[in-house]
């Protein structure tokens, strides 16, 4: 990172901390969410209904068109050549054989690629989607093992792939730092991102810890992980003069448009990105080099281009989750009350990006302890830029925290649930902010009851069936309620009593469009069948990434604002000679395809009537969401209680998860079906995190060796047991719709629950993920 960027970050952090202090002290009513969303009072309506995803028929019948499936006339297919060294220079690359191969249109290297402006990273610029600040095919320098060094365009994919195999780049290797130990020795820096610094110190935690009668002080570690969404990263692009159309698979729609415009030196509106369907995101579907390369190649060839990464390609140019080394220490009194909590993590980043896995995030608000020392430090490794992966920070951070709490419970001879509840804080320990919603005790009690926690033996190794040792474990998961700035939406109501809500949202399969159609229908008092939600087009209102479980809240707040504006305009149109005469917008709500007075539904006029009396076919309004200041005024978090039963084979060490239950405190659930899918999917990813996911990053040369789904293990069906999920459904009074995002909470806590169950089954404490059978022999 340059000095300038560092200075900028420090400035951002200072400004952010001043804003935070001011917002924390402001009266509730001044803050968004100070007045609860009226939707919270809607009961027995569409909110929470288990409505199937509206796009399910298109997906099942194959008519949904993904980025790799958009047909364009005269299209060329691209294949990429990736570097095999981690640092150095490309000395020579003879392209003649590839250029002469059948069907080849061109070979693009740094020598003939169009000039592109460098991009700021998305962690330093709110409009950017770029993962790193590296030039894309602009010079001969190599920055990681797997960097694209050439692109082949041919008439068919097979021809492009074959021609690519005829390219044999010659490199001059430089000194790469690919060993984590060497990177750490070269220097660590405290992690900071988007104005947040990942360091908290309250009291003298180390001294307090040393004086505690009961302590746990251990090192936990987690390996690198790679993204493996079912849909491969793909892009289909076409230029029309200086206008660029991009069919992408992205969770950063508007940001991708801005970034491509910036790189090609165009106005933002000259780039239009479509992404109506995305086959899984999880943090990996952002702007990587392939979109820029495809657009550059299309410009060079003067023809449309499709670039679909191979599975290996995804490992080479799409970053994943860093490895972590974490020291977790808890000092407690003999009665179990925490006095000191220490969580120090070391992670890897590259010299050219800034994503220090914020693994202390979940520790900040979890337990009451008067002395706290939390910090993330990053070392710089020459590798593909690491990025967000489902539950960034918390997924791996809660493994350390919740394993340590379990270890402390063993040392104290206490039930681990009682130990957790004993240390529930009254306000957020690090910020001092009040909680907007916190039902941790309820989820633990209800979950324990349903799971049959009382049947667990506190002494490990007590239950056995044949060769199989059986154990139960529990852990707490946590994830912040986030809302992003930039939320906006457009809402149209027509004279035939139908509505359309449009926003530049991303549909990665979680049901975004369905849920917002549901919410909009409920606000308007229309049936679901009469509302269409349109997403996946960068020219629609709003600039919000689908990240940090924040998309639903971010666009939800925008739709609330848009609805409010629509009601105001409808009241204006209704005038003084109808049933709504004299009413203010706050006094009415949507009911039976029209507006009605909230406490007197007989004063009602349909949208059809209002619009026809006004002589209008339809009414369209657009509005933006207020800045998300509420998350600085209250401590807003989701919580989970994860219960798990495992079977460990005493002969072979094989581990099978036989039962999982997740109890969630996530505010109001907007759609029981799609939410349950999010919980379950994330829990399955948590099983992978606990038991099998591991990127084999060869530290000798920085090469990822298991770049395939055969060798990089994720759970198969037989690894996934029945997963039960339950939730409180208590609305957060300060969150839009009363709801929290639910995309990531399910992975947090899961790995610890499994590790704790393995301990309960075997008496063996595994502090190094994944828990493979060799660690249990």
């Amino acid at each position, binding site marked *: 990172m340059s000095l300038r960027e560092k200075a900028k970050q420090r400035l951002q952090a200072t400004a952010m901390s001043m804003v935070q202090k001011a917002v924390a002290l402001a009266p509730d009513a001044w803050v968004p969410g100070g007045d609860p969303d009226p939707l919270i009072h809607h009961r027995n309506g569409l909110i929470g209904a288990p409505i199937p995803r509206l796009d399910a028929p298109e997906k099942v019948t194959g008519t949904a068109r993904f980025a790799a499936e958009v047909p364009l006339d005269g299209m060329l297919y691209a294949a990429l050549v990736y570097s*095999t060294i981690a640092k150095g220079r490309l000395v020579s690359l003879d392209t003649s054989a590839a250029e002469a191969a059948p069907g080849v249109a061109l070979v693009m290297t740094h020598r003939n690629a169009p000039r592109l402006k460098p991009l700021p990273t998305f962690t330093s610029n709110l409009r950017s989607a770029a993962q790193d600040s590296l030039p894309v095919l602009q010079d001969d320098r190599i920055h990681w093992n797997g960097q694209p060094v050439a692109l082949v365009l041919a008439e068919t994919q097979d021809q492009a792939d*074959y021609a690519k195999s005829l390219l044999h780049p010659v490199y001059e290797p430089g000194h790469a730092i690919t060993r984590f130990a060497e990177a750490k020795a070269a220097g660590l820096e405290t992690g900071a991102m988007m104005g947040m610094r990942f360091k908290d110190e309250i009291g003298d935690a180390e001294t307090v810890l040393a004086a505690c009668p009961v302590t746990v002080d251990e090192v936990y570690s987690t390996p690198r992980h790679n993204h493996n969404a079912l849909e491969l990263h793909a892009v289909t692009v076409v230029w029309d003069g200086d206008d660029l159309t991009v069919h992408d698979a992205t969770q950063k729609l508007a940001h991708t448009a801005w970034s491509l415009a910036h790189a090609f030196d165009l106005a933002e509106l000259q780039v239009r990105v479509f992404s109506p369907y995305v086959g899984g995101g999880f943090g990996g579907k952002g702007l990587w080099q392939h979109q820029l390369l495809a657009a550059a190649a299309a410009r060079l060839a003067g023809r449309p281009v499709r670039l679909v990464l191979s599975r290996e390609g995804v490992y080479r140019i799409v970053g994943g989750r860093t490895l972590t080394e974490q020291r977790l220490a808890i000092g407690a009194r003999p009665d179990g009350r925490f006095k000191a909590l220490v969580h120090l993590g070391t992670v890897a980043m590259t010299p050219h990006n800034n994503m220090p896995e914020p693994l202390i995030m979940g520790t900040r608000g979890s337990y009451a302890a008067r002395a706290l020392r939390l910090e993330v430090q990053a070392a710089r490794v020459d590798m593909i830029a690491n990025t967000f992966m489902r539950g960034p920070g918390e997924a791996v951070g809660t493994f350390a925290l919740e394993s340590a709490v379990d270890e402390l419970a063993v040392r104290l001879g206490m039930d681990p649930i009682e130990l957790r509840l004993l240390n529930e804080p009254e306000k957020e320990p690090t910020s001092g902010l009040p909680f907007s919603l916190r039902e941790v005790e309820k989820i633990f009690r209800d979950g324990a009851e349903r799971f049959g926690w009382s049947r667990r033996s506190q002494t490990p190794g007590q239950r056995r069936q044949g060769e199989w040792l059986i154990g139960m474990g529990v852990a707490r998961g946590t994830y912040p309620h986030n809302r992003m700035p930039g939320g906006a939406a457009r809402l149209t109501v027509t004279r035939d009593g139908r509505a359309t809500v449009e926003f530049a949202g991303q549909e990665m399969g979680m049901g975004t469009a369905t849920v917002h159609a549901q919410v909009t229908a409920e606000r308007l008092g229309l049936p679901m069948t009469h509302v269409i939600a349109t997403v996946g087009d960068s020219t629609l209102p709003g600039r919000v990434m689908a990240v940090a479980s924040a998309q639903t809240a971010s666009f939800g707040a925008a739709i609330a604002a848009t609805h409010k504006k629509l009601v105001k305009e409808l009241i204006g149109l209704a005038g003084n000679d109808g049933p709504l005469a004299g009413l203010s917008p706050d006094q009415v709500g949507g009911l039976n395809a029209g507006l009605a007075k909230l406490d007197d539904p007989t004063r009602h006029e349909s949208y059809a009537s209002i619009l026809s009396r006004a002589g209008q076919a339809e009414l369209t309004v657009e509005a933006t969401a207020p800045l998300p200041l509420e998350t600085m005024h209250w401590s807003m978090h989701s919580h989970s209680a994860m219960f798990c039963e495992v079977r460990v084979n005493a002969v072979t060490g094989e581990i099978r998860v036989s039962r999982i239950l997740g109890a969630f405190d996530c505010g109001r659930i907007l759609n029981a079906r799609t939410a349950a899918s999010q919980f379950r999917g994330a829990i399955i990813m948590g099983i992978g995190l606990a038991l099998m996911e591991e990127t*084999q990053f060869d530290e000798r040369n920085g090469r990822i*060796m298991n770049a395939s789904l055969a060798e990089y293990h994720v759970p198969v069906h037989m*690894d996934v047991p029945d997963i039960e999920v339950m939730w409180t459904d208590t609305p957060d009074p300060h969150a839009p719709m009363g709801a929290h995002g639910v995309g990531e909470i399910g992975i947090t806590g899961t790995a610890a629950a499994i590790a704790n169950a393995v301990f309960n089954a075997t008496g063996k404490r595994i502090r190094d993920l994944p828990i493979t059978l060799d660690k249990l022999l």
Partner: protein
Amino acid sequence: MTPFQYAGASDAADAVRRAEATGARYLGGGTNLVDLMRETIERPAALVDVTGFSREVIEQENSGLRIGAATRNTALAEHPLVRTRYPVLTRAIVAGATAQIRNMATVGGNLLQRTRCTYFYDDDGSRCNKRSPGQGCDALDGFNRGHAILGASKACVAVNPSDMCVALAALDAIIHLESPGGARRLPLTDLHRLPGERPDIETVLAPGELITAIELPALPISMRSGYRKVRDRASYAFALVSVAAALHIEDGHIEDVRLALGGVSHKPWRAWRAEEALRGQPASEAMFRRAADAELSEARPLKDNGFKIELARRTIVAILAQLAGEKR
């Protein structure tokens, strides 16, 4: 993928003639060869499709079985005579890959399945003596948790990934071959080579030699047989260690035994030493352990795979104990 010629053949002799003329490789289900061609690790100039050849599973006069090389893995695993007389073979086959892959894969092709060593697969980024003889082996000091503990060399530490072959090794299977010089037969245990200095030469097959059938001898002991595969997830993973075993006990003594290991060597590993140590001995866990120790006495761990020695020992003991405990 590198462009190639594709041809069918009317029978084995025709296939061999065509291969001799063009240097072609034989194409079975393609579940391994075509993958390797996509990765440009294999670049055959021509393929001769032999999937149309015999898929018959025929009972022999001596009540053994003759299995056509084009038989699909699924069909073989489901065959009633295989299920009842050679249960170890059915179990080994269904422990491998996925149902979809087993539906495509042929028995002949499975015998020639190549290693899954990730350095072998990394065509342009890693050194591999199997791919490019003399280049060096990056697995030796790299990620080698899944690699060999028996019979490896400095040149190669890769393992044979087949489950089916482990069962066949235990069952004294005979391979039938057709070659330009005529037909011949070969014990399965002699088919695969240890790596030595030439890990690129994986079998004793001469160029152009075609596997036409597998013969399973009548083997009453195999009625009581089993396969145990230990791996990192419940399905669709290669064996860390697998054991195929058959056991015949009379009056508490081991009358006869067959034992083979998978996931531990460059070839399916017939455990001759353990078998010898067991024959005529009392069937006890202590004895099983001594036999496993005898077999593993020359096991050599690499950086990441030392656990395989203990895992193999435990798995051998467990499956023998299980077979000893089963009612006849």
